[in-house]
């Protein structure tokens, strides 16, 4: 690990000031320290935000929840208000990582964990994300876990979060404070970036910008929630494919549907065409196939991960059967 200077921030204002001079925030540290040990990440300065008062979950007047960025994944998953109104979020969190990691990992840090693959970790291999311009060893290499949607010739890594997939299905809004003190609200749908030719840039945050809260809109009344994760072992493994779904039925028809996907792209994936293929229709094999066609119209495999295309289709259809009570 390269050495660094360390400061513990006493307030959000102090944190964004400290960080503006090239510092990196550390909260749970479970992803950052892991990467620092391999010198994939080499920050000059760590700004410890773990003691800031951003560890509460509060109800808002509009019926939604405001989640402090430092609420640990464990606490968020077990919160009775989250279980009652946003079961897909609890389920996704509980499907991710291990008990020890969930106790440490923060809400903001989970959103900001690096999109990555094993070539990103292996400093002997080319990786455009780790070293821009060096190439992508995953293309033409072992790419079983890699992206089938939204990838580029520069990077085919996947975003590993389960939580963020549920957050996309729930239309979460990310609240930040910038280095100059300005606050902004960023829809999770606008938060992540596809790799393009700059895979080292994974989201729209500016240097020094700090996530302070995540807002969830009021729950969809009467909706059924599901998080279905397909992985290589039963626990403590990244998703090959996952589906987060919030579906409301009305009179035998699909009244609303929010569907997001993990393990398939550089960011948690959501495509309005999938939902458009379902809303207003009665559940049927035909409608479900049409939704899968919409999801996978532009899907592309890279050899070892070709299986993910039919796997995503089957996982979506199985999820829809469960969500629509068929």
């Amino acid at each position, binding site marked *: 690990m390269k050495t660094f200077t360390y400061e513990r921030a006493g307030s959000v204002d102090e944190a964004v000031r400290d960080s503006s001079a090239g510092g990196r925030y*550390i909260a749970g540290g479970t992803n950052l320290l*892991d990467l620092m040990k391999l010198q994939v990440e080499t920050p000059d300065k760590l700004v410890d935000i*773990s003691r800031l008062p951003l560890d509460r979950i509060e109800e808002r007047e509009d019926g939604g929840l405001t989640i402090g960025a430092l609420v640990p994944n*464990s606490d968020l998953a*077990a919160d009775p208000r989250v*279980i009652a109104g946003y079961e897909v979020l609890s*389920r996704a969190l509980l499907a991710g990582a291990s008990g*020890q990691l969930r106790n*440490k990992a923060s809400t903001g840090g989970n959103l900001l964990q690096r999109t990555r693959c094993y070539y990103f970790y292996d400093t002997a291999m080319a990786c455009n994300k780790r070293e821009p311009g060096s190439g992508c060893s995953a293309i033409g290499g072992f790419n079983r876990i890699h992206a089938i949607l939204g990838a580029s010739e520069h990077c085919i890594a996947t975003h590993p979060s389960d939580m963020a997939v549920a957050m996309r299905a729930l239309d979460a809004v990310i609240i930040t404070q910038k280095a100059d003190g300005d606050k902004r609200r960023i829809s999770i749908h606008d938060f992540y970036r596809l790799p393009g030719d700059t895979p080292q840039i994974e989201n729209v945050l500016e240097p020094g910008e700090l996530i302070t809260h995540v807002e969830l809109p009021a729950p969809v009344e009467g909706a059924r929630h599901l998080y279905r994760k397909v992985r290589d072992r039963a626990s403590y493994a990244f998703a090959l494919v996952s589906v987060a779904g919030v579906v409301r039925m009305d009179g035998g028809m699909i009244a609303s549907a929010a569907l997001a996907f993990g393990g398939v792209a550089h960011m948690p994936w959501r495509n309005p065409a999938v939902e458009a293929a379902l809303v207003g229709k009665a559940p049927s094999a035909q409608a479900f196939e049409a939704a899968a066609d919409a999801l996978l119209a532009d899907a592309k495999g890279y050899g070892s991960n070709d299986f993910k295309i039919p796997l995503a289709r089957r996982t979506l259809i199985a999820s829809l059967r469960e969500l629509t009570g068929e």
Partner: protein
Amino acid sequence: MHFTINGQSYEAEPDIRTSVLDLCREHLGLTGSKKGCDHGQCGACTVLINGRRVNSCLTLAVMHQDDEIVTIEGLGSPEDLHPMQAAFVAHDGYQCGYCTPGQICSAVGMLDEVKKGWPSHASADLTDVSFDNSEISERMSGNLCRCSAYPNIVDAIREVADQSGDEALKPARQPAEAGA
């Protein structure tokens, strides 16, 4: 820097990069916690910080100067075993023993999580956990055992859960009991 580990105060000046694990092992002579992967994948380094189980390899000592850290040495001693240690011995919940301190710290932290009503990926109902053995396996998945002593580890944890008498740690409740 000042640390509180197993109820004792320690002063140390480790390098800023030092993890809680390396602080314990290399600076304070507390070698019970083990370094397996050093990347949070194996769980051999699991300790309790403010009562919560965490991977001590993946957190910086400097960030935990005001916290209560408990390692395997703080749970029990050879003369006075913690119930979880005694159960691991009774059920032969290990072979080489390298993962055992982490398994035991993790199991102790895990049972407290269940007592708080925290659900898991194995819970059919997130608001009413039935603490059967599939719950133990799921909740302990962050602790690997390369000798594969898993069945005996589950038995040991089951015994501690059963002997606690705690309602939250009981397996599948009968309908009559559930209404009680």
